[in-house]
């Protein structure tokens, strides 16, 4: 432990910061995409129209039973094939994360929608609103308010999951740390540094969730 070399971190800080930015950017876009697609899947599943709900249920259960790494491999293989030309690792990874996380978000959102009492829906219908108006003005706003803590928690998990783009060598924080570790021969320092950075971000995030849960709107 005595010859712990901090300078390796200092010297490579700009490179590491670039990696962290990619991780955060990927997390942010995947959260947005995952929530949008997840809401669609949840509405399909609760629609009462059998083909739609069956499709959504199959999709969600399929995605939830395979590892994320396999999903990343799938989309790295499928996306360029489907589009007909390579579009770069970042977009393939982003699509994989959105498709994967949407399945998890849709389960959270479905529970959130079901937490809004039926009386609210009936009241909306009684005042002459159609299906979309009831969802848009009554159900979803309340559902999302109830779900905020869980959505943030899932966001933290998603941030940790982005480290898996390492398997396709996309230069996120994890991959960059590992590149520095190898080229400088400083494995111990770099992996412990990576662990500390992830820990600080995720721990701060979970403290934030705890405050949300205690907050006045909870």
């Amino acid at each position, binding site marked *: 432990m005595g010859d712990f070399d901090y300078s390796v971190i200092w010297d490579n800080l700009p490179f590491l910061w670039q990696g962290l930015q990619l991780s955060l950017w990927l997390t942010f876009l995947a959260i947005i995409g995952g929530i949008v697609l997840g809401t669609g899947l949840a509405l399909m599943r609760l629609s009462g129209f059998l083909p739609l709900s069956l499709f959504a249920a199959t999709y969600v259960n399929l995605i939830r039973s395979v590892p994320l790494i396999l999903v990343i491999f799938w989309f790295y293989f499928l996306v360029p094939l489907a589009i007909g030309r390579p579009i770069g690792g970042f977009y393939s990874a982003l699509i994989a994360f959105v498709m994967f996380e949407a399945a998890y978000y849709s389960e959270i959102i479905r529970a959130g929608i079901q937490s809004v009492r039926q009386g609210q829906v009936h009241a909306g219908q009684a005042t002459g609103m159609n299906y979309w108006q009831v969802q848009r003005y009554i159900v979803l706003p309340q559902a999302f308010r109830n779900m905020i803590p869980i959505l943030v928690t899932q966001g933290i998990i998603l941030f940790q999951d982005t480290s*898996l783009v390492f398997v396709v060598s996309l230069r996120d924080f994890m991959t960059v740390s590992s590149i520095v570790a190898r080229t400088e021969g400083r494995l111990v320092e770099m992996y*412990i540094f990576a662990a500390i950075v992830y820990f600080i971000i995720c721990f701060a995030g979970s403290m934030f969730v705890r405050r949300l849960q205690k907050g006045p709107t909870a």
Partner: protein
Amino acid sequence: MNYNWNWSVLWADPYLGWLISGVQWTFAVALAAWVIAFALGILIGVGRTLPSKPISFICTCYVELFRNVPLLVQMFIWYFAVPEIMPEDVGRWMKRDMPNPEYVTAVVALGLYTASRVAEQVRSGIQAVGSGLTSAAYANGLSTAQTYRYVLLPISFRLIVPPMTSEFLTIFKNSSLALTIGLLELTAQSQQIAEFTFQGFEAFTAATVIYVVIALFATMIAQTLERFTKIPGFVGKG
């Protein structure tokens, strides 16, 4: 889309063997790690609910530490950093003489990581039993150990069967991370077949189907288990 289908590649000579060996490694990692996760997770989960402040603090630290660092980082620390930090002869043994280093490391990393998740389930199960029963037990003169042995654990273990089975499934999925340190489990083998044969569609489909079958089996076993362990009156909780 321009793609040459060739499903027979999955039955061709080396590739079928690769898949089978991949499934075996996936099971070997997941099951061994589950033993660690289950045993340690129960201890830590119970520890977090104990009245003793130092014990519950240590257990809380464990959970927060292992939950807030990505599993991939943990895997790398166990594989690359720990042998360097260890005393010299232990480190040398880990690097040179330890049998199956990838397997042992993957099991340890996955087991200790999943233990933190199991601990959270155990803790929430114990807390779901409610303070009324705990107070009643103490009022009857039961010691802390007896309260856990006769009241809290028997009820909470039955309450947490559903979330525990989902943790059990998660450990199979997370075992795929072992490929990052060079263990050729199912996902790695399918990727390798895709690279060797250019039949990515077939290779990934095979792996996907196998994972889905594992999930279906686990869900079936879980439902049977839930039927036997369900507590009337606690239905829907846990």
